[in-house]
């Protein structure tokens, strides 16, 4: 007799658990307002990433096309895998002294791991992380970027 009761109890509890599970998924199909996915390429105009999002490294230029990089190579030392290469040259400034000035800021995007170690290392706050995350290109040489546009440095940058 116990066996028969257990048989029917098993069936009852089994069916009840199945129906509860179906109720959960049934709830979601009847509430289509709760859909959480976004239609990505169509909503690019309204898409805004967070401020601290690590997309890629850029050199900050203001409206006069000037940047703050002194060529001190602190970011190159802090970078773990050689993504940043600073090529600098010596020029004469107004006082006639030879100072080191940045020639090219080479950034290998294909090797960058976005670890954010270079940004706090910079003493003049010349670089920051932009929120641009679409890096796919068809030609690999486009991933080696020169970050400084033809411009100059503003004053009071400290080595």
């Amino acid at each position, binding site marked *: 007799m116990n066996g028969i009761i257990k048989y029917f109890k098993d069936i009852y509890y089994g069916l009840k658990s199945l129906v509860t599970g179906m109720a959960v998924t049934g709830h979601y199909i009847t509430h289509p307002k709760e859909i959480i996915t976004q239609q990505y390429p169509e909503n690019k105009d309204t898409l805004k990433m967070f401020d601290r999002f690590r997309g890629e490294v850029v050199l900050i230029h203001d409206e006069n096309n000037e940047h703050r990089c002194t060529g001190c190579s602190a970011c190159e030392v*802090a970078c773990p895998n050689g993504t940043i290469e600073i090529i600098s040259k010596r020029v004469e400034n107004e006082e006639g002294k030879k100072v080191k000035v940045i020639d090219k800021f080479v950034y290998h995007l294909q090797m960058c791991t976005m670890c954010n170690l270079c940004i706090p290392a910079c003493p003049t706050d010349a670089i920051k992380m932009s929120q641009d995350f679409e890096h796919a290109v068809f030609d690999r040489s486009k991933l080696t970027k020169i970050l400084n546009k033809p411009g100059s440095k503003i004053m009071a940058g400290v080595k």
Partner: protein
Amino acid sequence: MKEIEEQEIQELESQEYFINMGPQHPSTHGVLRLVLSLDGEIIRKVEPHLGYIHRSIEKMCEHDSYQQIIHLTDRMDYLSCHMLNEAVCLGVENGLEVEIPERVKVIRTIISELTRLSSHQLWWGVMGMDLGAITTFLYGFRDREMITDIFEETCGARLTMSYNIPGGLMFDIHPNFQKRTKDFIVHFKKKLPEYDKLLSDNVIFRERTRGIGVLSKEDAISYGVTGPSGRGSGFSCDVRKHNPYSAYPKVEFREILREEGDCFARYKCRIDEMWESLNIIDQLIDNIPEGDYKVQTRTVIKLPKGEFYQKVETARGEFGVYIISDGMKSPYRLKFRSPGFSNLSALDKMSRGCKIADLVAIMSTLDLVIPDIDR
């Protein structure tokens, strides 16, 4: 005429055959190759072949400075990356004997528990998907989305965070951090009972996980299976209780232990751990002390000569960092004790005599992440 000698010939049993659950397989959670020797559908032996994603991280750490090692540890167990970062940072800070501000400890603990929650959510989703209920995958990721949004706003990245540095945090938390975390706790406390209704109480799921893959307590201790997999067999191994670090001495939580040692016990351990994590965050989120977010260290960190070991409790088990330093700016040798490696070694013992479908269930409950095993 030659004598006929009696010889022993080693033969396969006539019915056995080998099947390769190859490196590309939907349910091995990464690149793991399992060579199964089967008899019909019963498994006689499981042999894991590792190394498909070995990237020589430990060797790379010998050439990097201590701050640069952090971004490499992100990529090992990428689902609990914050805890791995914390392990290396604590090891270095103990070596340098610096005192960390209370604020840093509390924030590190909160973010650790959030990471543990997101790892368990992904585990739950994948477990349902391996057993055939594909909808659970999407539900796990939906809930995880809120946590990755919290991380994206504060740390800048969603998966590989590199937020810890030796000495504290890279930058202070975002002003929205507390509010977002509190909203998340309220939201998730309503969703977690749904996990039970959809999978834990389901009769089909219970039939597939009860009594499968039993690991006794003595076997768990001798194989070194830690984390929820070990606690499901009754092995009390929670590092947060036995060797507390960061803000864990200040919080009250239970260590979840179960006696049966089968798949269902390990599953329930993880679900209950999710409730405990919510509890811990609740206790800490309103009481973040004010203060600095880091201690100023030298730019070039040099540990004194010696050996340092630090262990933390990740979502998979006990993770350890062993640093041998000879006074230079990179460690002489760095060794990681990964929980997945020990957990995987018990797979053979647990799955003898089970069917292929059970093997999938056992591997899901072990919660393996193969980059953690291969480093």
